[in-house]
């Protein structure tokens, strides 16, 4: 299912028995394929992390794929998405090639951020994906700003701004929601409510439920079951259209669950949540298994088809990993690139005085010899 498909159900298939929730068989397979791709992608990333191909923080979305598919796939290609650091699958959902995402995790030039951003900072403006932000809550005003730009230009796109449940306790949340409401910005704030911020249950540090938070700014609150991809899809499809037509900002409490640890170094369960709790979600609330079972029950999916879809997903992820592995590391000579738009203006931009640092226009010169780990350049004369 490609971006911009619009509402399902116009396929002209024979009868009602072949549809579910208004989705055609193809559409359903597409959605399942998307989610399986996300799952396999994350599993591949997990593997790659274990063998040191990926470094730093790596936050997996496993268990929450219903939201990547359900909240992003109904969007138009020119709608904008901005989110936090648990965003691999959201990036893929919005249209970034899994190869470019994987290469970014590998820190390679083929990455969607050229290897400079890493797992937490995936970007591709061509598909309307605006990151990937590491400071909890920082993307909330950025999302308001993206929506501001849409409104300013009189466009009919919308911006979807994701955040974790723990982010609603950041002051930026208040400020952004208030401004969005005052200025009626076309933005949908989506809380991926997995119940925890790292090892802290939401209820331990929050006075009220997530859905209680937006009323203070008169922004309508909605709750959706993020593990039900079909419901989520339909919900966002409707909501996006309303916002597109001027309904103003919306707030969605999307209930979900994280199947892995917070990041790679965090155990799946521990002091903060029991093994049983996790297992009960993995067993009963896996968004992919739920969709699969529903399709099979409705005879809209055969085991063979499933295997085919999964094989494709695995192949795509193997391919992504192979691509990433083959992609070169950024050249050392690029160290100073993209700090500023123009790298040799008047005056010095860079004050480390390394031999490798660009020297600025009037100074003349400033070759790009690699810095080699940086002592200050020698004195003149």
């Amino acid at each position, binding site marked *: 299912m490609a971006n911009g498909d619009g509402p399902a159900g116009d396929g002209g298939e024979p009868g009602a028995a072949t549809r579910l929730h208004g989705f055609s068989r193809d559409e359903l397979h597409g959605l399942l394929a998307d989610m399986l791709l996300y799952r396999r992608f994350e599993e591949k990333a997990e593997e790659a992390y274990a063998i040191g191909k990926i470094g730093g923080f790596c936050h997996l979305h496993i268990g929450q794929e219903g939201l990547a598919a359900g909240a992003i796939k109904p969007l138009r290609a020119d709608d904008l998405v901005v989110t936090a650091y648990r965003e691999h699958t959201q990036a893929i959902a919005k249209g970034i090639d899994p190869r470019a995402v994987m290469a970014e995790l590998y820190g390679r030039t083929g990455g969607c951020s050229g290897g400079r951003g890493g797992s937490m900072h995936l970007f591709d403006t061509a598909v309307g994906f605006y990151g990937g932000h590491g400071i909890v809550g920082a993307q909330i*005003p950025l999302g308001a700003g993206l929506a501001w730009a849409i409104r300013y230009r009189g466009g009919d796109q919308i911006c979807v701004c994701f955040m974790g449940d723990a982010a609603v306790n950041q002051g930026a949340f208040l*400020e952004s929601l208030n401004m969005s409401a005052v200025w009626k910005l076309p933005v949908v704030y989506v809380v991926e409510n997995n119940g925890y911020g790292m090892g802290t249950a939401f209820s331990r540090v929050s006075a009220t439920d997530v859905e209680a938070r937006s009323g203070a700014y008169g922004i309508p609150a909605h709750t959706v079951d993020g593990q039900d991809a079909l419901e989520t899809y339909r919900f966002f499809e409707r909501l996006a259209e309303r916002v597109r037509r001027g309904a103003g900002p919306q707030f969605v409490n999307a209930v979900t669950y994280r199947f892995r640890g917070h990041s790679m170094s965090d155990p799946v369960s521990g002091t903060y949540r029991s093994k049983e709790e996790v297992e009960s979600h993995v067993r009963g609330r896996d968004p992919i298994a739920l969709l699969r079972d529903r399709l099979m029950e409705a005879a809209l999916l055969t085991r063979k088809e499933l295997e085919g879809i999964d094989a494709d997903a695995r192949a795509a992820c193997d391919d992504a990993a192979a691509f990433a592995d083959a992609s070169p590391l950024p050249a050392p000579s690029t160290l100073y690139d993209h700090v500023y*738009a123009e790298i040799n203006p008047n005056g010095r931009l860079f004050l480390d005085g390394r031999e490798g640092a660009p020297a600025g226009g009037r100074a003349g010169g400033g070759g790009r010899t690699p810095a080699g780990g940086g002592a200050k350049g020698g004195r*003149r004369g």
Partner: protein
Amino acid sequence: MADVAEITYREALNAAMCQEMDRDDSVFLLGEEVAEYDGAYKVSRGMLARYGDRRVVDSPISELGFAGLCVGAAMAGLRPICEFMTFNFSILALDQVVNSAAKMLYMTNGQVSVPIVFRGPTGAALQLSAQHSQACETYYVHAPGVKLATPATPADAKGLLAAAIRDDDPVAVMEGELLYNVRGEVPDEEYVIPLGVADVKRTGDDVSIVTHGKMVHVALQAARVLAREEIEAEVLDLRSLRPLDADAILETVAKTNRVVCLEEGWPFAGVGAQIVSLIQDEAFDDLDAPVLRVTQADVPMPYAKNLEQLAKPGVKAVVEACRKVLYVPNAAT
């Protein structure tokens, strides 16, 4: 020759914003009190009437939020002018300046630029006490990715602010409440001064005063005092701190061999520390005396008039520092 008019620094800033808003619809002004109230310091006088409330927008008192909103709008290609009523309040917004605006282009591999201007007064006015008198340069120059301009005169205010608005990088433009009424000649026509080019505001052979912003005027006054003693001070106005016109600094050092660094802010990790570091690194042998720094006293700004006066870097301190680097004895105090 271009037409010039004598206008205030405040009017010059206004003129720069109007000049750029006239030529580019993607430029807008957002901040506290900028629209209906014409700006807390009346810098945006008349702009609401001229451009309407789509482009001149009063924000709630939500510094982190509205700075972040402006960064987001800039990511989408608009050119926000984000006014902080004073830069003191921008410390609340620093995360969006440092972690979003400054780092964005780099971590997106050049995909997402943030052509935003943060502007407003910095430093002390008169008796505004500790929380309203801080010079904020250090917080804005430390992180690579942001530029910083500090106009001292009306002409520089117009030219540098215009340049900042056109620049594709985040640029902070730090003004001064005490500068807003300063008058000076400013070209009527389209006027842009490139960032990164310092300006010799007074030539002299004996000693160089390297400074920026509001302190340029203190330096010029000090130079006049020194001139009576036949000491000719050169006043180098850096005009922008990032990019920094290192060549101009090195030239004046080579010329006078004696330097006083004057800044409004605190000493520790101040702008002057970096200038000293640059000079000793690249012009060590040119110095006939160690560079002296004149800064705010290393204390929060006191309210009491006499203590405030004492805490601020003033003409007397600059004069004495100049004499000192020239090994001319100061009168016993």
